[in-house]
């Protein structure tokens, strides 16, 4: 069996990759969605193209480009940084689209009502539109987070010692090709449960506050 501390470290590594890349995506997604919904057609089209390209290439290819490509040509990236960077860049595209869906779901009447009450542009966005959009985004963002947790296993391909990496090592050395991977699978499912739970409870709480 794998020693418990090794297993613990592997779990921590999986969580670190998932959380870091999600945060990168959540933060970079904001400017991206603003550009995506810009008043200027050219900006909108270019942003959309960028998002489509980021989402249209498999995540493992981005990780490889960062790790084997950019890293060898320009600067040296360690595997963990390359994995987080690759997944983070993809998440900002996905999350920007999720934000956009949330913004679109807020009824135009809300903006008009706020304008009629004398709110300014910024006030309308921060006080009226964003809180309602946030509620709508939450379940999709959580679902995306769970997807990202699973994609974090891709880091094993460039040697980051997270859950999938440990399971593979164990299977190769131990000769049992089933147990390590079943345990790994169960661990991923267990890790995704708090996220699913969080999304559900936050969703109900916010729904009570902002019923759409």
């Amino acid at each position, binding site marked *: 069996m794998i020693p418990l501390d090794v297993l613990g470290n592997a779990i921590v590594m999986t969580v670190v990759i998932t959380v870091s890349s999600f945060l990168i995506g959540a933060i970079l997604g904001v400017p991206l969605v603003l550009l995506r919904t810009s008043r200027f057609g050219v900006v909108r089209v270019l942003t959309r193209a960028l998002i*489509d*390209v980021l*989402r*249209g*290439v*498999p*995540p*493992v*290819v981005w990780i*490889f*480009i960062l790790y*084997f*490509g*950019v890293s*060898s*040509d320009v600067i040296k990236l360690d595997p963990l940084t390359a994995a987080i960077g690759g997944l983070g860049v993809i998440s900002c595209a996905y999350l920007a689209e999720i934000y956009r869906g949330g913004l679109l779901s807020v009824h135009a009447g809300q903006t008009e009502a706020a304008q009629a009450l004398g709110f300014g542009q910024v006030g309308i966005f921060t006080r009226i539109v964003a809180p309602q959009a946030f509620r709508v985004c939450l379940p999709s963002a959580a679902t995306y987070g769970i997807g990202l947790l*699973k*994609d*974090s*296993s*891709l880091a*094993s*391909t460039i040697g980051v010692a997270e859950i*999938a990496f440990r*399971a*593979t090592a164990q*299977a*190769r050395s131990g*000769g*049992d*090709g*089933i147990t390590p*991977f*079943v345990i*790994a*699978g169960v661990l*991923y*499912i267990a890790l*995704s449960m708090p996220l699913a739970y969080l999304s559900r409870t936050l969703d109900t709480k916010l729904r009570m506050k902002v019923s759409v």
Partner: protein
Amino acid sequence: MNGLIEQWIDWLPSLVDGLGVSVQLAVVSLLIGLPLGLAEALLVASPNRIVRWITLAVVEFGRGTPTLVLLYLIYYGLPSQGLVLPAFGSAVVALSFMTGAYTSEIIRASLQAVPRGLVEAAAALGINRWGTFRFILFPEGIRIAIPALMGFAIQLFQTTSLVFLITLPELLSRAYSIGSTTFQYTSVLALAGVLYLLVTLPSGWLAALLEKRMGRHLA
């Protein structure tokens, strides 16, 4: 710049062959996985509790486990049970299993999204349960499911990039091996990325178009 184009032209035949393997893998996995997904969607709604729970466990495992882990489980796991599959076979088993799990959820949600009134109308006409499924629920549900299923198919195609791990010569594994001999990783991986985009972008546009048209039809 000229050098880059020449390189790309050199590599293209090998990569296009690899793309062919990726597409084949995605298509075969869909052909097996979609009927599996329909079966799982129906079994999850079975009146028998044990059937329901077992199916649910299978679906949850398929959706909750990274595909990379599934792939290893099949590739390393089955031989230890005395069942040796070729790499392509292992990949198809893993990807079909994952397709079944994901599409069963899409199909289940779509069947539930068919308006109750249509089912009642069928009942009021004296159409029995099987007839209602065959003539009303299934065609209506599939129509609702199509945009999401297309979205999934695009994801599945991207996921085929993982099978380089079990040495199947698809697009990414060809790019990687060219990279490891020429050390032109950025260049060859970028070309691979472009080839992936050549499939995913038009499919994405088609999916969006279909979704819009369906929306109009259903209104």
